[in-house]
């Protein structure tokens, strides 16, 4: 509080601020410990990752990342020594464990599936959501409130409850374990969020802009395209990121409806197995890579977060 400010009862005292800052920062540190631990576990060797007491100081290695992306097989010492010079760091690390790299693991294909399905469903959901939100925002739609509530209510169903009939339906239509099936499914889940969020954003754009444009000779579609959409860019971008995060993180449908070709990363990461149980450094490495996009998105979204998580109910 600067000296030239008038005394205000609303401004907390300096002591209150210091105590609050201390407690909040303490909480932030504690809450970050699990994430910090996962990131550093990714750089541990398998024995270090399961040592007791847990090691904070250790020799960092890329073994976890190498194991994440490759499949290996154990060989005799003579065989490993008979090979030529190692190609690349992963080759070297693997040979130290008396193993050779025999191929690529499924992590990267699963990660690609996650990208395709998340982006595909986001584009579709935002496209449909923008049209629908505009429709609800600008036209007198019969039973508008009921339809909007219907759209929202589809989000209340437990995913497993819908998964049973969707599983049967997809089996009949040949959509099981296909990217298209997952894209359609995630679009259907995300479109309710997209409609509710975007309706809020479009409601905030004054109608007068379009009316003026239409008086100037624009058609309805032209004014939607050239007046409303540019104004709604922030809202559309925020909505898209929310849809992307949902599709990126989703597990229940993914684990039940995909098993191979269309499997995404979340059901895959927990199954990364090394010799003698889960390969924790590889799991941690896979988790770290998977989580980084989310961290970027969180920072981009921080101003719109509240709106997104409450379906537009709280706008600040």
């Amino acid at each position, binding site marked *: 509080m600067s000296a030239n400010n008038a005394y205000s009862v609303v401004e907390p005292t300096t002591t209150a601020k210091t105590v609050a800052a201390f407690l909040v920062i303490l909480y932030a540190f504690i809450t970050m410990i699990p994430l910090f631990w996962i990131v550093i576990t990714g750089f541990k060797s398998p024995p270090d990752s399961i040592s007791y007491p847990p090691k904070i100081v250790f020799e960092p290695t890329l073994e976890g990342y190498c194991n994440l992306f490759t499949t290996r097989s154990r060989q005799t010492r003579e065989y490993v020594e008979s090979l030529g010079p190692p190609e690349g760091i992963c080759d070297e690390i693997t040979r130290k464990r008396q193993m050779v790299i025999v191929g690529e693991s499924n992590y990267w294909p699963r990660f690609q599936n996650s990208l395709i399905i998340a982006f595909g469903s986001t584009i579709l959901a935002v496209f449909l959501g923008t049209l629908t939100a505009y429709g609800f925002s600008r036209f007198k739609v019969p039973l508008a409130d009921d339809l909007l509530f219907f*759209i929202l209510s589809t989000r209340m*169903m437990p995913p497993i409850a819908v998964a049973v009939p969707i599983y049967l339906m997809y089996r009949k239509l040949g959509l099981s374990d296909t990217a298209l099936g997952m894209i359609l499914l995630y679009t259907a889940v995300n479109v309710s969020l997209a409609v509710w969020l975007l309706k809020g954003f479009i409601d905030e754009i004054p109608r007068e802009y379009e009316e003026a444009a239409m008086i100037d000779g624009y058609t309805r579609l032209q004014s939607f395209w050239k007046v409303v959409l540019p104004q709604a860019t922030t809202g559309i971008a925020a909505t898209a990121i929310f849809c992307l995060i949902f599709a990126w993180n989703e597990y229940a449908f993914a684990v039940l409806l995909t098993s191979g070709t269309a499997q995404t990363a979340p059901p895959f990461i927990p199954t990364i197995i090394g010799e003698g149980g889960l390969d924790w450094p590889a799991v941690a490495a896979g988790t770290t890579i998977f989580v980084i996009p989310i961290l970027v998105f969180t920072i981009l979204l921080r101003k719109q977060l509240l709106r997104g*998580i409450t379906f537009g109910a709280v706008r600040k």
Partner: protein
Amino acid sequence: MSRSIKGLSDRAVAWWFIAPTIILLLAINIFPLIWAVKLSFTNYRANRLNAEVKDVGLRNYERILTDPDIWMAMQATAHFVFWTIFLQTLIGFALAYLIDRKFRSHAFWTTVILIPMMLSPAVVGNFWRFLYQPQIGLFNYIITFFTGAEPSSFQMLGSVDLAPWAIVIVDTWMWTPYVMLICLAGLRSIPDYIYEAAEVDRASNWRRFWSITLPMALPFIMLAVLFRGIENFKMFDMVMLLTGGGPGSTTEVASITLKREAFEKWRTGYSSAFAIILFVAVFGLANIYVKALNRVKQR
């Protein structure tokens, strides 16, 4: 403002804008739901394609409501939902209150605190399983470090007494920021002049908190509880990866039971009936709650 597009009235335009979404939702949400209702009256099993499907009337529903396993699952769910909401509201509101003291760099720390809720619940469940490992897990190590307990004397995920709390801890870690964010919006919505008036009336800090802050933030707190309640009633991914419902069935929340019935025992008809019951329960409870919420808002 009713300028039409080449012979299309505004009404027709509205229809073209809205219909695709409605059709998609009908195809991927409502049609399967109706199908599930139909299946719930049969003894259909999705893994036996050639078996005869018999109409069993309401028998599936009767059996679910009298099945002790289902009631166990409902108890596990109730324990999970109650404690997560209780802890998240308490800690979330406290954090929001502290952040609302507007200390320097509070925006930065708020963003840091928000990170856990953006992560994939499945991935979170999976890495907490690592933190909860007996002996080697970081969580167990920290607990033994501060309490002096034997490191091998307790297993967060393997013990019948601790496992239900293990899932509550992870959910609270993950979703407290969510409640915090909504509460913060509530606190910021209280206009300054009310506090100024309280100052004129010489109301104590304590009194100010109970008569202004809490009642005015209450609709927001209730909204956060609604969202968390619905989400945690449906909880599947995080618990599935953390405990898989175990040990025994101590953490088998409703969605996990449903998954077992539907995709492991393949009792499709029976599990459809359970799905319908769950859906009706969420929907009904949410509706009643929203009515209460609106009453608080209008006060």
